[in-house]
């Protein structure tokens, strides 16, 4: 059982889906689709009635429904409109065009990945330092934990402006924010993981006359892997959020965050929704990639 005094986990633990849950999941997703269509009809109906149907007396539900699901700028677009918009923006434009959704996805994915790598490295270095230095453990570690109660994303505009004034633009400032968001879970999990070998194991290494380096590489690092990978899954999701938010104050040039912002400026709801769905898919793909790596690297260990 998770202890109540456990470190603050930024995200809820992921449940492992099993084959027996395919039918329930499909039911839930189906119900979600039905609710979405119903909500689209209900939310868009006033506008449709006001603009189109007011001069057509005697209209019925059969006239109303198709219209609510095919509006140009709906309050809530229907799922097929979002899907169509995504498909069009992927197929109709070349990859390097700023109108292609894949181009923006690529921009966001790039800064997410760079930030994720930097954040993981920083997290690992901090964890190794904290495990080996009592002073750092007692003085720095509490601050790392306290830093998570702080809305770190609020510093995004500062980092962008400060690095921009030094002439650094593009991927790097965004990755810095991703890095800041994703180093924390890695540090906390690795401190736990590197300390997970018990007295027995450590004493065994001692009887082998193993040096500190050997104990570290042969015992502590392998023991920490089961702690590392769940934190990487959390970290990459956080890095994606960081990359998207970092794109907001830059004045909306490229990336999924920029798509969200321009969509909200011009009231283009379909564009907002397709950017949102795309970022969800990107999040799933990135976490999936980490989970896949985990399975490849720890055979026979965790599922």
């Amino acid at each position, binding site marked *: 059982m998770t202890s*109540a005094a456990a470190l603050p986990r930024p995200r809820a633990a*992921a449940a492992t889906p099993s084959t027996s849950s395919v039918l329930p999941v499909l039911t839930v997703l189906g119900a979600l689709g039905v609710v979405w269509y119903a909500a689209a009809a209900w939310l868009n109906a006033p506008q449709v009635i006001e603009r189109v149907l007011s001069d057509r007396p005697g209209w019925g539900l059969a006239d109303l429904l198709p219209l609510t699901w095919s509006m140009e700028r709906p309050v809530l677009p229907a799922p097929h409109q979002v899907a169509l918009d995504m498909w069009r923006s992927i197929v109709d434009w070349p990859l390097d065009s700023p109108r292609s959704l894949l181009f923006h996805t690529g921009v966001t994915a790039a800064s997410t990945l760079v930030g994720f790598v930097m954040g993981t490295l920083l997290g690992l270095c901090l964890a190794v330092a904290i495990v080996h230095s009592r*002073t750092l453990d007692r003085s720095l570690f509490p601050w790392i934990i306290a830093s998570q109660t702080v809305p770190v994303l609020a510093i995004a*505009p500062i980092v962008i*402006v400060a690095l921009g004034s*030094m002439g650094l633009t593009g991927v790097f400032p965004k990755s810095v924010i991703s890095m800041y968001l994703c180093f924390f879970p890695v540090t906390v999990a690795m401190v736990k993981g590197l300390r997970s070998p018990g007295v027995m194991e450590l004493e065994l290494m001692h009887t082998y006359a193993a040096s500190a380096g050997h104990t570290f590489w042969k015992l502590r690092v392998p023991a920490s892997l089961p702690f590392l990978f769940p934190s990487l899954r959390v970290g990459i*999701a956080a890095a994606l959020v960081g990359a998207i*938010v970092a794109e907001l*104050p830059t004045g909306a040039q490229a990336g999924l965050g920029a798509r969200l912002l321009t969509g909200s400026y011009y009231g283009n*709801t379909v564009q907002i929704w397709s950017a949102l769905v795309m970022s969800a898919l990107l999040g799933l793909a990135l976490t999936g990639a980490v989970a896949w790596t985990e399975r490849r690297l720890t055979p026979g260990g965790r599922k």
Partner: protein
Amino acid sequence: MNALLALLSLAGIWTALQLPVGVASAGQPWRWAFFALLLALVVLAVATLRRLAALPPKGWQVRFATPLLFGLWVLLFWELLTRGFDVPKVLLPAPSVVWASLLQGAPTLQTDFVQTVLHSVLIGLALGSGLGFVVGVLIDRSPFLQRGLLPVAALASTVPLVGVAPIMVMWFGFDWHSKAAVVVVMTFFPMLVNTLAGLAASGHMERDLMRSYGAGYWRTLWSLRIPVALPFIFNALKINSTLALIGAIVAEFFGSPVSGLGFRISTEAARLNMGLVWAAIVVAAVAGSLLYAALEWVERRSTFWHPSIRMG
């Protein structure tokens, strides 16, 4: 020895703070004096921290003193380096500058605090967590729905939900209602997942005991399962308190009335008024920490029976 170290540190700090701004890029002798002093202070900082960290971790004073001293040293070096190298304020204002803008902008920041924390965050957090809890209790009775919703809720944690902010701003307008709506969306799933995990945490033995007492579903829920679930629920609340502040601040980047911490941060950053930006961040950080500490206090009060609380 300890008194000597403390005295030396204070003397060094006092001397360092007397140095003129931009001393590190001044003439040769000044420059060397600055770097020598800096080096001496680094040695003193390491020495004092090591001594304090070596004390036995008994009592909360010692446990708090080390990180506190570390924080003070970091602030001091921040101040010294920004002054010594005359770092432009756009890049990094000195702590004293931030403090000055905090005092100067106090009335503005107070309205921002009320707008963001008291309205968007607290209302959104209460609604989102409450909804997650209620839905969790309701679908706990249906294993089918549980198996269907849990994977979806777990997937929701990999999705950048903060992206719903522009939609909510469009639906609920610029005021705090749209920010609270973003917070509701962000906090719902962690609470749902943790409530379900918590409700499943009570053992068969305890449930059988409740049945042998003739307790019905609601009685069992109230007297056994919810108390057992409390550590999980507080865990979710603590996760959510951070998420809620992030959601409210980011949602304000998409449009807000002329107050709010996120609005202040984005507009003042665009005007390069970094002192006030940092002051707004200090307010947000203190608000986040206080919210977290308050939740922790309530948790300790209400789950006093839990082993992890009794031991600590």
